[in-house]
């Protein structure tokens, strides 16, 4: 029966080629536009570290100075923390893992004497890699001892490895970065998280850095943070003569992100009371003049709070869904016209014994067929649309496109097109099967 209905549908398509093409185009445009923008939203809003984000917490505390400066908004904690606080808090054993990081720009000297490269780098502790699910192709993270000793090691991105070593396993080789010779312990696989979740304050949609270095190298390599820094304290006399990195360490400059992995609510509570105790202790030393305000925010809440996903993306997704509704309304009209135009054939089938239900099924099959075909065309359209978006947003340096149609979105697109076909076909199919056969037989 289904086969028979499919054959009838095919015949009907061939009989009205222009009308059928219009219907197909209508579905394809509706599905294409909505799939493109819903995918864009879906990609941007998706959990950046699936399976881990629930246990990742960002730490803020109000370490502003006493001056009540509304520009610095001293009544709420700053978005970043100081070196001395980050290093002290990292010692806590309450989090399963923890890392403190900041971004830097680094000059990398390729082996063999080619001209140096300027690359984005990040100073982290080894827990960074498992916490943010960084995938390794060769080697792995450095050890905790390496963190403690300030070992001259590094993990490089797959793009940098391609550029310097032609993609070969470079673990164990040495590259010069700034003044230091660093041994490569790990090479990442291509990595393009939707959101650079570990540094959501500075250009969160950018690709991850090319090099990762132990935080303990900050002083010896005279690192200078390249992302946001806030400084409310005036330098002490003679301080300006010190190297920049040393100044950062003794100063109140806010430039670091501190992350803690806390497995459950009890750990969050314990960690919070640990932080409050730390603030109380620091108050005795004359720091933290404001009321203690310690915030331990989960990754997803933080992305929400800082509006990391551009809100316009949501508006576009909503608008494109409405577009699909208009396209479906349009289809109702087209199907209605098409079906009523051949009402006389239906009259003959009814007179020969076809039940209403059979007529209804026949027409619904035709609608679904068109829906499915239009949906496939629409998916192709949305692939083209996403390719355009990717060109503007930019592929990652690893060549991983930013926006990709994943399986759930693909299934959603197919479901959408079937739904559009059903919604658009239901009324016309019902209308045509409700027509009494006699009226159309008479006019023959």
């Amino acid at each position, binding site marked *: 029966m289904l086969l028979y209905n499919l054959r009838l549908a095919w015949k009907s398509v061939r009989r009205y080629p222009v009308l059928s093409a219009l219907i197909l185009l209508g579905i394809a445009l509706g599905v294409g536009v909505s799939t493109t923008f819903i995918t864009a939203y879906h990609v941007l809003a998706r959990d950046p570290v699936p399976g881990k984000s629930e246990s990742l917490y960002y730490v803020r505390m109000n370490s502003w100075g006493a001056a009540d400066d509304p520009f610095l908004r001293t009544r709420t904690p700053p978005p970043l923390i100081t070196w001395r606080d980050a290093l002290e808090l990292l010692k806590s054993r309450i989090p399963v893992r923890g890392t403190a990081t900041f971004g830097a720009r680094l000059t990398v000297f390729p082996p063999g004497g080619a001209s140096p490269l300027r690359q984005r780098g990040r100073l982290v502790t080894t827990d960074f890699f498992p916490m943010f699910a960084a995938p390794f192709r060769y080697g792995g993270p450095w050890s905790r001892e390496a963190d403690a000793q300030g070992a001259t090691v590094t993990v490089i991105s797959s793009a940098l490895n391609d550029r310097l070593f032609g993609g070969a396993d470079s673990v164990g080789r040495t590259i010069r970065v700034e003044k230091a010779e660093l041994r490569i312990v790990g090479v990442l696989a291509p990595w393009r998280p939707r959101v650079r979740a570990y540094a959501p304050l500075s250009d969160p949609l950018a690709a991850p850095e090319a090099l990762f270095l132990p935080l303990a190298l900050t002083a010896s390599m005279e690192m200078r943070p390249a992302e946001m820094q806030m400084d409310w304290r005036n330098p002490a006399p003679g301080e300006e003569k010190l190297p920049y990195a040393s100044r950062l360490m003794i100063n109140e400059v806010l430039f670091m992100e501190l992350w803690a992995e806390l497995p459950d609510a009890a750990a969050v509570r314990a960690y919070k009371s640990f932080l409050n105790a730390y603030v109380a202790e620091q108050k005795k030393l004359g720091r933290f003049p404001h009321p203690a305000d310690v915030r331990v925010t989960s990754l997803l809440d933080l992305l929400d709070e800082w509006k990391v996903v551009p809100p316009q993306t949501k508006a576009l997704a909503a608008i494109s869904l409405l577009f699909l509704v208009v396209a479906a309304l349009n289809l109702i009209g087209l199907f*209605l016209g098409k079906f009523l135009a051949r009402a006389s054939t239906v009259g003959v089938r009814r007179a020969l014994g076809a039940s209403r239900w059979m007529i209804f099924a026949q027409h619904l099959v035709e609608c679904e067929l068109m829906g499915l075909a239009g949906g496939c065309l629409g998916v192709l359209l949305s692939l083209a649309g996403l390719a355009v978006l990717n060109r503007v*947003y930019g592929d990652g340096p690893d060549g991983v496109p930013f926006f990709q149609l994943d399986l759930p979105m693909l299934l959603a697109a197919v479901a959408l097109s079937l739904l559009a076909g059903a919604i658009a076909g239901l009324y016309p199919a019902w209308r045509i099967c409700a027509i009494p056969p006699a009226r159309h037989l008479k006019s023959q």
Partner: protein
Amino acid sequence: MEFGPIFRSLLRNRARVILIVAEVALTLAIVANCLGLILDTRAKLARPSGFDDEHLIAIYSNPFDDRLRDPKLLNQLVDQDRRALAAVAGVRAVSETGLRPWESSGSRTSVRVPGTHDEPVPTQAAQADPGLFDALGLPIVQGRDFTEAEYDHGADAPADEVQPVVVSRALADQLYPSGDAIGKAIAIADESERFTIVGIVDRFYNPFGEASEKIMLSPGRSAGFDFGAHYLVRTQGNPGPLLPQLEKALLSVDKGRLVRLRTVIEDRDEYHGRDRLLVASLDAVMALLVLVTALGIVGLTSFSVAERQRQIGTRRALGADRLAIVRHFLLENWMVTSFGVVLGVLLAYGLNFGIVTWVAGAKLSPATVATGALALWAIGLGASLGPALRGSRVPPAIATRNV
């Protein structure tokens, strides 16, 4: 006019009427909101910086040769660089500055009139060297430029000397609303440093933080080994072709560094990239939507014409001319579209309310809604014209056939 008969015939074709009304209404709601978003974003994109953006090149020079860790040598290098850049034909002005137009980074602080307890005013802060005002194309409209001695002192000025600053009009007006800011004092909010305003630049916009129209410029230099040196070059003509020559000029001075050159227009386009993508997406959605809706109206009207061949034939046989037939269908469609437009205006405001409440965006202006409404009226009429003309060509004889 045949309003009565048309209205009654519409009542007999409720499905078709409802479809067109719903389609037109939804389309208008979407188009009006898209238009609103597009106009808001366009206004943001069109915002002038006050600089001569089209003729500016930003150059980043990052030393890697350990020799250049010596600040004296680095300072000499900056002087040599400036001379080398200025010597390239087509270069109008050169400046060494940390201020980079259209980059959402920089340095900011907050200031107030010393001795008062007014709310501190957040502002951008940057250092100016003797070429900066010329390089930005930012004339000093009131007061004066820094003197040579002031430029020479820079950050090393004696601590007891009051340091001169040039501020933007927006900052001057906020601190001294009566317009007499020249010669007056300003201080960092905690009064750790005091300055005297010696000059005012007019329009200034840089997309950094909240302080985007306010800036305070002090004489000085920003170059350092780890920070590098940043140059702004203003050209006489199109800056693009000069990039290779400028790079060569710098590398011939010293090769121990990395040099990166970009036109400020590139920076501006990058800064606007996502907004431009949004506008392009909305444009595309709007155009496709209007196309789909127009096709829908053409389709539905065609069917209604095809369905009523015999009625048309009868009317023609009874003496109606072709114009009357065209008028009938146009009027019918106009009525249906009008229902849709009225409903669409309500829907547009409803959708806008939703977007403003749950997403983000500005309120719709009545002009935008009116523009959308007029456009849809025109599209509705235009789309029904073809089928109506076809209907008018139905010969009267058809009424007598097939009975």
